[in-house]
């Protein structure tokens, strides 16, 4: 193989750049080159198109295969409880016998695990309780909403109101960073700051979390303002079953990686 000087950015670096994984110095050089080079821009588009197509083919392929989480999480709880109750006994109770004992313990505490899980559902609702949070809207028109700037500053829910929301859901002393008090119908879609429109949403718990709902809200607002759906429909769908609405508008069974990605690193930061 003869080595030839190639002035263009290699594929590897184009991919690293798109992934924000290229070291800073090289990254700014590459950006300058990209701005001036049609060839490299076209190549990067090609690579990213292939990536997007593979990712979406893959998520379609796998979406239906992920079973519901309920019983498996309860089983894990039960098995952990089994391990936790286990003593460190050397000799006879090692290896095989210990495994058998752990298995037995797991079965015995499975019922407790299921009970915990039901309780967990109460404490960590994925969807709001329709009786407590039916949703409430302001009377604004589509035109008014869509002409307002999208990000209208930080909307702070008064502490007293947040307290009222927790109280109505029977949550006492909510753990830090477990919840955000979220609008059922976002103000960007005409939702009101009213206890009937607020609920404690688990922040990072599971796949259907606050980040994913945010993505749906953005999508619905775009569709409303584009005139693809009417405002009332958007309000109704997000307040009835936001997870069903997400599935419908993103054509997917599970949260898309790019939406799930928002929360993945966050609780640690």
């Amino acid at each position, binding site marked *: 193989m003869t080595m030839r000087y190639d002035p263009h950015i290699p594929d590897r670096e184009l991919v690293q750049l798109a992934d924000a994984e290229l070291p800073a110095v090289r990254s700014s050089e590459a950006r300058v080159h990209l701005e001036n080079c049609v060839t490299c821009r076209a190549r990067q588009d090609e*690579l990213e198109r292939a990536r997007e197509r593979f990712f979406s083919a893959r998520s379609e392929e796998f979406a239906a295969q992920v079973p519901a989480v309920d019983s*498996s999480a309860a089983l894990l*709880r039960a098995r952990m409880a089994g391990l936790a109750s286990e003593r460190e006994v050397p000799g006879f109770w090692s290896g095989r016998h210990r495994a058998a004992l752990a298995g037995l313990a797991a079965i015995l505490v499975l019922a407790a695990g299921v009970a915990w899980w039901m309780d967990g559902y109460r404490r960590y609702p994925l969807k709001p309780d329709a009786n407590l949070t039916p949703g409430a809207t302001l009377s604004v028109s589509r035109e008014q909403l869509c002409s307002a700037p999208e990000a209208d500053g*930080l909307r702070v829910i008064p502490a007293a109101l*947040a307290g009222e929301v927790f109280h109505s859901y029977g949550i006492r002393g909510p753990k830090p960073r477990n919840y955000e008090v979220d609008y059922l119908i976002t103000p960007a879609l005409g939702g009101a700051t009213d206890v009937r429109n607020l609920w404690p949403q688990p922040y990072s718990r599971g796949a259907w979390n606050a980040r994913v709902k945010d993505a749906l809200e953005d999508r619905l607002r775009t569709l409303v303002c584009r005139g693809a759906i009417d405002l009332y429909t958007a309000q109704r769908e997000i307040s009835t079953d936001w997870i069903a609405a997400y599935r419908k508008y993103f054509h997917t069974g599970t949260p898309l990686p790019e939406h799930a990605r928002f929360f993945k690193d966050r609780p640690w930061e």
Partner: protein
Amino acid sequence: MHESCSVFVDAAVESGGPRPLEDEVTDLYLDHRGALLRYLFSFGLSPQDGEEVVQEVFLALFQHLRKGKARENLACGNLLQNLPPQNLKGWIFRVGHNLALKRRTQSGRESFAANHQTLWRNHWDTAPGPEEQAIDCQRQARLLAAVRAMPRRDQSCLHLRAEGLRYREIAEALGISLGAVALSLGRSLARLSRADAR
């Protein structure tokens, strides 16, 4: 922008002491289960086998953290926060990866490969519809086939990246260098773009 509609409750609450380790591990399980399962499916594991491996991974994590907790005797504070997050995620996927390989050897490669084929194929066979959709499906099938034809490490890098892992997390999961991750992804996407253009 997204923050505008919500408020953290950090400040509003009194802390109730350290959380039980079981709760921490359950939260991690709920956050990572889907991604780990999909990764395991990429080895051709059946949903049942995948689910079982995920359980094993989080039980191992639980044991790992319990031992760490006993050793360091941390009276308070959140143990998990002492672990760098990239190591934690890398750790989870590394253990899952190794268990998947083990299970694949156990269940025999042939039946395994057959399972893999049907798993990937049935979607395309059942997809009905107009011509454009058929062409779309063909293209998707071609891309998936191109990935299956790649060396396992390249497949792993792609699948882990698709689940949103950063390069350092992928490196940790596969026990390779950052440079190797970048090289692999660059090579694989180039291959995919060729398959896509065909």
